[in-house]
């Protein structure tokens, strides 16, 4: 697998998981406790994916890890606000 198709595969992985999480969100749309757990799982998945992806592309640095952590946290905060009320 060349670098371009590898990059494409990893991008498709993110989209695939996004669709999967959306389906799970729909299934549990009335259960806010499960939705809160799912939000946390998405955040953890995203940060892990970001770190692995950066490591595979030899771009892993503390600032990049911090960026994935912060964007994951931003996504979680937005979901938390919407799920809290």
């Amino acid at each position, binding site marked *: 697998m060349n670098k371009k198709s590898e990059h494409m595969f990893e991008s498709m992985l993110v989209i695939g998981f996004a669709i999967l999480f959306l389906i799970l969100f729909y299934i549990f*749309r009335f259960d806010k406790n499960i939705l809160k757990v799912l939000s946390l799982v998405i955040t953890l998945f995203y940060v892990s994916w*970001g770190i692995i992806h950066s490591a595979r592309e030899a771009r892993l640095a503390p600032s990049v890890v911090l960026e994935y952590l912060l964007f994951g946290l931003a996504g979680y905060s937005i979901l938390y606000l919407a799920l809290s009320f």
Partner: protein
Amino acid sequence: MSNMKLEKNPTIIKNWRNNPKAIDKFRFMYHFLPKEQEKTRAGLLSHKAIIIYCLLIVLIAGIFRLIPMVFPGVLGYASNINIEDLLSYTNNRRKQSGLSELRLNRKLSIAAEKKASHMFDKNYWAHISPDGVEPWDFILDENYDYIYAGENLAKNFSDSDDVVEAWMESPSHRDNLLSPNYDEVGFAVVNGVLDGYETTLVVQLFGRPREKGQVASVFQEQDLLKELNQSKTEVAVSVPPNGGPDYSLSEKESISKEIPDSAPSPSSVSMTNTSSENEPLIDVAMATRGISIAFGGFISSLLALDVWYSKRKGILKFTGHTFAHITLLFLVIFFVWFVLRPGVIL
């Protein structure tokens, strides 16, 4: 803008005396566009900025928790729920499962209304009240002599179909809704203030009278529905500023009971509320959804601008995957806007 930054942009230094507007524009745009010299994201996408967004969101959530304690009833959940729809959706679900339709019963409806009012009065959200009053007590108070009885509760919903759908999604509530043991049902849809939030409580009580001949007729049901459609009430309640504890037996559990022994006592409560159009000053569900989408939209727009501008100017930055960040934020926005529904069942 610091001197160092100005020094890095010779065009601006050259013309700034003649064109101060250009400096202002540069100062403003500088926060939105990637930095060519430093090869980093825009100031509004810096790590510090993202931390500030997260803190702002937490602060907003805190304010929305604090307002009901200081000004009860200002925040709330808008709803347009009515008993006719609740009955219709419930019976549609039963018909789809090959079960008989439930008849709307006056006594069960009065008991449901008393239960809802009791929850507002005592500021609790549970099948059994803090002082130990059970759903069966309300049913027996109405002289409803039953073999089987059950209760489903809902709050903060905006539509009748969402309420029934939420009950159907929960196994224990679905068991009540689709139980062949019940012949009759009673509903109450009551507006009031619970835990400082203006909200609508929905109480659904199921029952099978001891004698089959006691089941309400179609005509009685039609009369009752007409009566219910003519009246509306609002329950005014005093709420402790810090809200009340949750006394629920176990979260997300419906409740049912078989064959009581105690003797019922007569009731003097008149039927009133039933359809609810609740309009609080600020609809907290809509407000939080709006704020969430605004934050998500703002950050993803900045990221899209980042991609476009970097490509145009050939800026190569050592950052994370922008496309992945946008995907995450789109997922969050899509979920909050299209999937998430307000409401809690018990």
